């Protein structure tokens, strides 16, 4: 099964070289286990733009779609046998120690 590990962390999290190194090590371990499908970090909310289309009109605005104290800071997409395996990988993400990781199964589309 594929799971999306969504990394949420406080808005004011400073960049930390130790955390960066921990992410490098984590990504290598995940890749070598064969479970990694994809993964990236995201630029901060000051680089975010929100798009809506209403009545065929495209509305573009600066910033995130909702104000929150935590932001989506990155993700990993993993392919593992079950939820327990996904939770184990989620717990190893460096941000799990100061933010939170939301684990969501990827929807499977079945032929009609």
């Amino acid at each position, binding site marked *: 099964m594929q799971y999306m590990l969504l990394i949420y962390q406080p808005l004011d999290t400073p960049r930390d070289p130790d955390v960066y190194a921990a992410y490098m090590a984590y990504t290598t371990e995940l890749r070598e286990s064969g479970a990694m499908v994809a993964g990236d970090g995201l630029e901060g909310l000051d680089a975010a733009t929100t798009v809506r289309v209403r009545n065929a009109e495209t509305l573009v605005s600066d910033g995130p779609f909702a104000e929150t104290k935590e932001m989506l800071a990155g993700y990993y997409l993993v392919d593992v*046998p079950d939820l*327990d395996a996904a*939770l184990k990988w989620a717990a190893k993400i460096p941000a799990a120690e100061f933010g939170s990781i939301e684990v969501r199964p990827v929807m499977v589309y079945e*032929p009609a």
Partner: protein
Amino acid sequence: MLDEAVSRAFREEGPAILATLIRQVGDFSLAEDALQDAFAAAVVAWPRDGVPASPGAWITTTARRKAIDRLRRERGLADRIERLAVLAARDTATAADEEENDEMPVEDAIADDRLRLLFTCCHPALALEARVALTVKSLGGLTTAEVARAFLVSEPAMYQRLTRAKRKIAAAGIPYRVPPLDELPERRDGVLAVIYLVFNEGYAASAGDRLVRGELCGEAIRLGRLLANLLPGDPEVLALLALMLLQDARRGARVDEHGGYVALDRQDRALWDRGRIAEGTHALDQAIAQRAGGAAGAYALQAAIAALHATATDAATTDWVEIAALYAALDRRSPSPVIRINRAAALAFAGAPEAGLELVGPLLQDPRLDGYVPLHATHAELLRRTGAATAATAAYDRAIAATANAVERAELQRRRAAV
């Protein structure tokens, strides 16, 4: 007579059959539906053909065929076709064996399946209330209506809670298995916590709903026994079983004829269930023997306290010194004001009220415990025993002001008058 055979099979064998079916069909809800179908078929077939020699095997085979029927109707989904092929192969291969009742390997497989089901129902990815309800429903053989009544929610609400939990198990990919050894202790603790919660739901029941909710105590003890059989030699499992048995032994004496709560020292000990006490102390002895010198767990310490109460002839001859020491050990293990208050109360009875006062001193400074009746009641009792009558009366006044319970207020006023 026949209805009785079907309902007995449902109660006694339903949970074990369900556990096996879930593994075989790979889907909680499908297994439940197929099991319902099979019992419906039994209601028709058994009066006509007679009750089969092994009702459980008959239900299992029929339910598996019903699952195949249900899967066929929903054909078109790739993974279901695969499941169907596996099931159909199993059906031709093992139906004969199962009906012929070959004993040992089947028994073992059923035990493993029930353990799988228990760990799945208690998975931490499910909401706690869902874990508790799903465990009672799936392993206890209660109907949804019975579970709803026991947890004081409407039947549709309970149905929804259970359905949502089963949907999450399927959609989130919660595995149907006993956790591997490195995860087992932590997950076992989670299962024990759910079982003890089931017990306390029943134990804390007020007079009005004592009958329905009290059943939960029996269910929790049954689950504790089941787990003790499935994980033999696990001291914490035995300790929890002991704790529940020893507490349950006092259940009949905890409430008076008017439905009021009766404190431990005023209970009629003739009403205590001697059978439960004997079984509980035996389980505790086993737990201590299994522990073999290691540090006692939280359930073992609580069970040891309950055992000292249960085996004493009255409050006066209870070994309060030992009880205070056990509370101290419990407080070191998981520090909590509630445990410290209990320890102070034990010190009062042990003839060491000064030591008890030293313990409650810091707690009285904590604003969060301002309205906590047991703190002020214990404080008052400690003061009374040191001869500080005026201070004791004032402490009783604080306890009386804090209580919202009429029975408790009457008891506190009685003690205040006796200072």
